[in-house]
């Protein structure tokens, strides 16, 4: 048993050591894997805000992940084809500048989170789970049947987007961008969680009536959290498109929602570093089991069931001492 903060520092050191190891051993694949972990951890961190701290289970975060991914893919493909996105009433050109794409991805997925959240937060419990899932499916089917951006086949972007001063096609530079963003996101989330707003959000999870009684509208707090959460997950989606240089409707599928949820729960819900630990473990399991057997998903399912049935509180819950809340 160790303190959660020490455990978090160990996690960061371990995570950072992987790409350096990749550089030393000349194994670029390690760097790609570490980048994938970082990006998925950002997505999980977004979900953790509503699922862990807010206590409402969104099964539709693939929508925000995918929307962020498509914002990046669409802007970049227009820029690479020199074809404006709209020509009337004024011309909007595509761009490959990350400093524009990433905030825009967050803005647009946050906007969708606002619309979806406004409808979904009218319900709670199981209804909330299913209706968020259904909205994500709606976006998914739209992406499949809308032919302009590749439809079912997806959209390839031949080059990663640019970042001033860095060569993003270099794996290590791209990892650094993602890593800095992850630390930034985790910092923001820890500030949110410990602010008045965060306390209201966590109280609304435990007792919405009391929160309402002291003059705070629980739905409003939850909606704001949902929008922030959607924007963060959208950021991860945009980075994921850059990592793969490809985006397809499969990032919008409900498996993605399930996987993001698995990261959060595997690591430990309402733990700041839970999503990072969960995503890392998931990727390690995927690589390790995938190397041993073709049917790795069977064993993954098996391990997940064991974790749910016997390891409450996820990995961090087993290792770290104190429980932060509720």
């Amino acid at each position, binding site marked *: 048993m160790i303190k959660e903060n020490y455990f978090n520092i160990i996690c960061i050191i371990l995570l950072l050591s992987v790409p350096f190891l990749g550089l030393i051993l000349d194994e670029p694949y390690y760097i790609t894997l570490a980048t994938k972990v970082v990006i998925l951890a950002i997505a999980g961190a977004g979900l953790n805000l509503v699922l862990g701290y807010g206590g409402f289970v969104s099964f539709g975060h693939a929508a925000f992940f995918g929307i962020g991914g498509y914002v990046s893919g669409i802007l970049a493909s227009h820029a690479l084809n020199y074809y404006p996105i709209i020509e009337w009433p004024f011309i909007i050109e595509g761009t490959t500048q990350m400093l524009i794409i990433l905030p825009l991805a967050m803005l647009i997925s946050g906007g969708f989170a606002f619309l979806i959240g406004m409808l979904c937060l009218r319900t709670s419990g199981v209804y909330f789970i299913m*209706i968020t899932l259904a*909205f994500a499916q709606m976006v998914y089917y*739209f992406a499949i049947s809308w032919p*302009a951006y590749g439809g079912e086949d997806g959209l390839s972007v031949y080059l990663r987007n640019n970042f001033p001063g860095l060569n993003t096609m270099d794996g290590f530079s791209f990892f650094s961008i993602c890593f800095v963003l992850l630390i930034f996101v985790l910092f923001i989330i820890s500030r949110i969680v410990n602010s008045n707003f965060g306390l209201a959000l966590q109280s609304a999870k435990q007792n919405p009536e009391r929160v309402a009684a002291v003059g705070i509208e629980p739905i409003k707090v939850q909606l704001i959290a949902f929008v922030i959460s959607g924007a963060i997950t959208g950021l991860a989606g945009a980075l994921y498109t850059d990592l793969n240089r490809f985006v397809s409707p499969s990032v919008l599928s409900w498996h993605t929602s399930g996987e993001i*949820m*698995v990261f959060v729960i595997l690591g430990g819900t309402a733990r700041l570093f839970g999503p990072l630990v969960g995503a890392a473990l998931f990727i390690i399991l995927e690589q390790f089991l995938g190397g041993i057997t073709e*049917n790795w998903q069977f064993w*993954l399912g098996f391990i*997940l069931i064991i974790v749910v*049935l016997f390891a409450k509180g996820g990995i961090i819950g087993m290792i770290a001492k104190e429980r932060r809340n509720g």
Partner: protein
Amino acid sequence: MSISLFLEQVLNGLQFGVMLFLMSAGLTLVFGVMGLINLAHGSLYMIGAFAAAAIASWTGSFWLGLVASLMAAAIAGVIVEIVIIRRLYKRDHLDQVLATFALILLFSEAMRWIFGAFPLFLDVPEILSGTLSLPLGIEYSKYRMMIIVVGILIAVGLFSLISKTRLGVRIRAGESDREMIAALGVDISKLYTLVFALGAALAGLAGAMVGAIQSVEVGMGEPVLILAFVVIVIGGIGSIKGALVGAILVGLTDTLGRFLLPSFFKIFLNPSSATDIGSALSSMMIYILMAAVLIWKPSGLFGNNAK
């Protein structure tokens, strides 16, 4: 557009709706009685389809295949309930979602292991191939007609099971107060297993019947599962009546949307963009329907509690 073509689409919508009802009935019962959200319901549908295809190709009889689908899904349901699901009733929805999500991975891989990655095919029996002549000059597939009839029979059977029999009384009692009926001496865990097996068998049957129209493959249960969720959210979770109304509504909306929307947009758009917009919009229709219902009635048409 001729009226007979339209009526044929209505029948297709009905057939789709009836099939969705078979899926949603189990899902909504399991939720109503045990308070469990079961993502692995789609896997039971898949197991039913695989069992039917395997037995039908082995014995050459479609009907034995149908029986096998009921049995296989029910047995799989009982095993899963006793080994895993039983431990989840008292957990929160998050744990249930995660554990049953893991069950999907497990079941899908197991099927791929046993049957390989290629889809299987289930042939429609001789007696049901060909079409049926209905009034107004409608030629309709006998097989699809059978699905509608079977579905309606099962719906009637299920309603009388729940409202007329002793088991039905227990199920309804379990829905309203599970501690109380346990205190009255009903073996609650046996009841739970039975309800779960019943839902599983219905899902398996649906899988087998659809298996003869589409191909039988791994992952076939998941799109249907999500549609079944939409159905029970529209109908109100826990209500069999709601599941029936919701299933028919979703079936008709989806089928007629795909049929009518592209021609509707052709009125004022050029044909190719009308087809694009029409098909994109029609694939979203049922979700729009669900959103509309939830804005109007947040706990579904026949639901009374949103917990």
